[in-house]
């Protein structure tokens, strides 16, 4: 006890004047203004009914949350968001990992492939949507021309409830590959050649190399890519807004898109804030869970 007190006293003495406050103040103020204040405000708003300019008019307790979870549309939107996440995240990561591994060798001409594979990184959501919207066009689109050439019936890529979410997911994978590819490529380039030389000595093949050397050594990048893709999937908005507008029949009405509509089109800020909080809790829990699960698998050199 006495020793502990002494240590504390020592620490106290070592600390200079509270200069740290001065260093932290700017970022603390900015954080308070742009992160903490809006966050607290969102929590408060979610317990209120609001006027259409956002003023809190009437405390309604949990009723915003209760009506969310009894609303068929919202539950459906939750389900669709999960489906969309499951569709996009694993495929994005697996495809970009494969592309990165295949194009990481130093053969001549690899630079061309690397540029192509990472090029979607430079395409804005708006440009990508316009381009895909043309491909998906029900009558004049290239995709349906191909389907018809093979003798099939034209498909309502974005207008059929059975297809829309898959079409959007495909576009999203295509768009996200560029970024994941770049990050994973960076990870691959950091692996020291000596690791591969030892594999050669052991005599392992491609998959042995991938499993025993490549994946463990780029696991930090992999972990980063998975986390970011997951959060992006939960928050995706642009593609939906430009390609389907949440349709057909709400089949692509993901959580953030619904939130946006409730807040900024229909001006029901109370309900929208409640949705924001639900989304926050969801992403928080999933990221937590993911960190716990993969913690052991990630090795930092």
């Amino acid at each position: 006890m006495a020793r502990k007190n002494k240590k504390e006293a020592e620490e106290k003495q070592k600390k200079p004047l509270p200069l740290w406050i001065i260093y932290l103040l700017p970022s603390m103020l900015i954080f308070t203004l742009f992160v903490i204040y809006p966050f607290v405000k969102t929590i408060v708003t979610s317990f209120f009914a609001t006027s259409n300019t956002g003023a809190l008019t009437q405390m309604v307790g949990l009723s915003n949350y209760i009506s969310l979870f009894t609303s068929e549309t919202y539950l459906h939107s939750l389900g669709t968001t999960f489906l969309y996440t499951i569709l996009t995240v694993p495929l994005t990561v697996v495809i970009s990992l494969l592309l990165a591994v295949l194009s990481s060798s130093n053969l001549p001409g690899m630079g061309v492939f690397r540029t192509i594979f990472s090029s979607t990184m430079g395409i804005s959501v708006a440009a990508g949507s316009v381009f895909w919207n043309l491909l998906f066009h029900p009558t004049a689109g290239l995709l349906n021309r191909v389907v018809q050439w093979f003798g099939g019936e034209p498909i309502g890529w974005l207008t059929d409830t059975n297809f829309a979410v898959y079409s959007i997911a495909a576009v999203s994978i295509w768009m996200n590959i560029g970024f994941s590819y770049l990050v994973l490529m960076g990870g691959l380039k950091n692996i020291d050649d000596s690791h591969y030389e030892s594999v050669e000595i052991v005599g392992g093949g491609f998959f042995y190399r991938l499993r025993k050397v490549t994946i463990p050594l780029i696991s930090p990048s992999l972990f980063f890519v998975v986390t970011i893709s997951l959060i992006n999937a939960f928050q995706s908005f642009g593609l939906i807004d430009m390609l389907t507008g949440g349709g057909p029949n709400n089949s692509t009405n993901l959580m953030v898109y619904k939130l946006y509509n409730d807040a900024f089109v229909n001006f029901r800020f109370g309900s929208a804030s409640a949705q924001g909080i639900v989304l926050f809790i969801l992403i928080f829990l999933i990221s937590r869970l993911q960190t716990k699960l993969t913690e052991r698998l990630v090795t930092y050199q």
Partner: protein
Amino acid sequence: MKKRFGKRFAAMLISLLTLLMAFGGCADSASGGSSTQTAEGKTEILFWHSMSGANQEVLNKIVDGFNASQDEYVVVAENQGSYDESTGKFFNMANGAGSAHIIQIGEQNLQSMIDSGMIASISDLIEKYSFDDSDLLEQVVNFYTVGDTLYVMPFNCSSPVVYYNKEVFDAAGYTEFPSTFEGISEAAAAIAGQDSSIKPVGMYAYGYALDQMVTNMGGYIINNENGRASRATEVSYQEQITKIYDWIKSLQDGGYLLNYGTDGTNTISGFTQRQIGMFIASSASARNVIDSSEFEVGVAPLPVPEGVEAQGVYAGGGALCAAAGMDEQTEKGVMAFFTYVTSPEVQAEWASGTGYFPICHGAYETDTMKATYEELPQLQVAAEQLLNSQVNSVTAGPLLSQLPQLRTDLQSALEAVFNGSEVAPAVEQAVSSTNSAIASANEGVAG
């Protein structure tokens, strides 16, 4: 050294606190104070609009025309996204510095704007500046008047119409476009029997057209006489919308229908590329559709079921709001701009270049308009559909802050029908979704 630090931080703290207070307090404050002047001493008037593409070019010409016509004011026109988006931005700006003095809204934003208390009463301005409103179309004034107060200045009026490929319908023996659901179904069957390369009917889920069709069939879209007797609490379109969906479903089941989801642009390109024979869309794109089609385009009023008399439509499209709490000089400028854009010549120029129709009687008498209608009689159809509309509480049109939600729900229901759902459950889903949104929005209305 330390003292200087302290001072700096005090200054920083104060400025940040001021910022915070500005954020917190902005909900109640209105602008006012002095007007914004340009370098030449002209008063600047900020005008937010939602016109894009070809229509934006015509609008810019009109604004330039106003700026050149006098030297006291400069109107700066900015596109701020769709009607719904710019309405949202307008609310967020809370009439602070940099916010619009004039904002263009769609008919679906009227109730929200009134509820916000952030727009001036046009009736008051009309009285104050003795603006001559006798020439405005009564149907349009009817829509935008709530409890004897006119809240917006009519500007760009449109109504949904049927566009059809005249060659295709002529070839099938229909030189007159049918005016009933049943008639269109028969024509569709005839076309399908002759020409397999084209789908007789194309359609996209378009909420505005759907609620206009309800109006045309004589139904109130929402209760309490379209929300005009007192604030609406639930929808009341069930009877009419069921008939509309039943008709669409029968077309679909017959294989005569191609759906484009909710994408109006794709529908238009499908039509101009001869993939569909007809579709329903706003008359605002008439000029564009006619100009980009190589065949003769026909335009017809909205159909009704057999045995129902068409009531006409309410005056949809857009209109101009004036922000509340402007200073005298800006207010004068806004009224000068309103006087200019509602004048017959400018309205005629506007209507000829787009597909909107003039909102004042005088414009129909101008040479510009007459020449345009001579050249493109299709543009006249949309105007006549409104001009021939009865003026009563049904065609006054719906007044509801949740109108965008109501339309989204109607679209979802129609898309469900497109995808094979039965009509009754689809309508039921839309009704319950919209009603709960209305209830939750009404909860938030102060007072």
